[in-house]
């Protein structure tokens, strides 16, 4: 196996050069360059923090797309991993006598490990459930988690309604936080995309397309479904830990179905089974929400503008438009248009 990795690393420079020259590679590099330039353009913590939130949700949405778009397991309870890792990270950084000595990345690793363990358990529990039953099952576990952490009697070890607060951020410098999260997002995306392109990814896709057929091809679908759950929960947990350090707190509401549905909407808007589409969907959601919020603050009596300042309203319309005109998600539709434009420019 190490020889394979060695071979891949040696071929990397040539591979990267070829990739950048392709359309998709070029666009990706362009977006990454834009993201890297942002902290150079502004020191304003407010704008930087919005981008950080978008990047955290990108990781979260991508983890959901990995499970649903590539393995066919549609989860309506992904907030479970967001929350369990959030609590893990927060507890490590605030609650115990060794907390002051725990670095943020140490707490993050613990949070991710807890999330993977829960991913394993949820995967095993939901094994026999398919389609709508899997969705309901995961959503139920999510609601159960929320209520479990709310129980006043468990306050001594589960922190109750108020959760944990005064969670330190990764750094007091917003630019440092931005670069760190950007780095983590890039690594997460690359990892997830490479897995989907590997032989294991092919097996995941076969389970998505025809689980019975995959069994008939000799694949232990149970094993691979649980593995997919664990990989997905790893990255969802990463997002959850980062979110706790972003919000500086965590409470039972992190488990609520809203966040599970939100990630679904982001992934669907961007494009299911694309991984990078989830990032696009997350950025669209977060940035558009901010624009709408500032619209609300203007204080207008114009009924159209009042309607437009309500995120639920706007995103419902947006979702309907996407389903009607770009059913494969915005990413694919946009790339197609851009590609035609690109060809025209190059005179093809």
């Amino acid at each position, binding site marked *: 196996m190490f020889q394979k990795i060695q071979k891949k690393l040696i071929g990397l420079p040539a591979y990267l050069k070829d990739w950048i020259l392709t359309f998709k590679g070029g666009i990706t590099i362009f977006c990454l360059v834009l993201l890297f330039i942002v902290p150079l353009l502004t020191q304003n913590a407010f704008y930087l923090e919005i981008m950080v939130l978008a990047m955290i949700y990108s990781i979260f949405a991508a983890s959901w797309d990995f499970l649903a778009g590539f393995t066919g397991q549609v989860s309506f309870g992904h907030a479970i991993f967001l929350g369990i890792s959030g609590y893990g990270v927060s507890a490590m950084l605030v609650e115990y006598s060794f907390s002051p000595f725990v670095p943020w990345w140490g707490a993050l690793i613990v949070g991710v490990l807890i999330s993977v363990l829960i991913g394993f358990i949820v995967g095993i529990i939901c094994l026999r459930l398919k389609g709508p039953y899997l969705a309901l099952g995961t959503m139920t576990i999510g609601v159960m988690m929320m209520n479990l952490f709310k129980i006043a009697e468990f306050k001594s070890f589960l922190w109750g309604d108020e959760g944990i607060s005064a969670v330190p951020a990764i750094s007091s410098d917003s630019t440092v936080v931005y670069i760190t999260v950007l780095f983590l997002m890039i690594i997460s995306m690359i990892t997830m995309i490479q897995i989907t392109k590997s032989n294991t990814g092919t097996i995941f896709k076969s389970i998505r397309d025809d689980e019975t057929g995959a*069994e008939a*091809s000799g694949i*232990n679908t149970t094993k691979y479904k649980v593995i997919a759950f664990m990989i997905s929960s790893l990255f969802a947990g990463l997002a959850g830990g980062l979110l706790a350090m972003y919000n500086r707190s965590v409470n039972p509401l992190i488990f609520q179905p809203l966040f599970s549905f939100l990630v679904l909407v982001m992934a669907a808007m961007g494009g299911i089974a694309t991984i990078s589409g989830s990032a696009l969907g997350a950025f669209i959601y977060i940035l558009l929400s901010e624009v709408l919020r500032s619209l609300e603050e203007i204080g207008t009596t114009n009924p159209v503008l009042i309607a437009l300042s309500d995120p639920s309203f706007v995103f419902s319309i947006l979702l309907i438009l996407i389903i009607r005109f770009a059913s494969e998600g915005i990413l694919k539709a946009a790339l197609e248009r851009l590609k035609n434009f690109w060809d025209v420019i190059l005179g093809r």
Partner: protein
Amino acid sequence: MGIILEVKNLTKKFGGLTAVNDFSFEIRRGDFVGLIGPNGAGKTTIFNLISGFEKPSSGSIRFDSTDITGLNPYKIVNLGVARTFQLVRSFKFLSLLDNITVSCLSKRGKQFSKKIGAEEYASSILASVGLIDKATIPPVVLPHGDLRKLQIGKAIGGNPELLLLDEPFSGLSFEEQVGITNLIKKLNDDGVTIFMTGHVLRELMTLVPRVIAMHQGKLIADGPPEMVANNKIVMEAYLGKGEGFA
């Protein structure tokens, strides 16, 4: 050449309906056996029981002296038994090559494909079923005949010793049937034991040296085609009483 498949007193009940009734037979390694019976006789249920997609109500199935009764389908595949389905199924969003690569990535498939790599191995299988020029195309655009070839390709990806073919000729034109027939014959020549069901009786009876006939879940005849064709019970099962079998 020992016994590769031994089925003893196999019974499957779905509630009040007995789909397979006290079925017993043996197949020797390298055999080429047909399974016939009118619609609803239970042929696909027999295949589902052998391949693990259904668990028997009673009875036993032994593959190469290993008891495979009630095992999970993927475990049975990894022991060397592969099957195709009556209604063609494929991994719709994967390329033809990837469709076959999946079988080469099973535990058994990896043993055989390790040396040259799963994709290379899958390519050679795709070529052997005559679909290599469509390697990058997804199955949605393929004609029915090619889909049947793909099914066989997927089944042999794990280098099975016993191949169960469920209605491999169903829905095929005459030329397409000839192609599939040659493919199956070659597999049998290479040593793969073939057990296939068929509806197109005339072709099947000329193809296989041995036929098992079933009716309403029960085994009613087992022997060379001419003998089975002239068996009175078989004739009644297909045609009702008082008719000859052309």
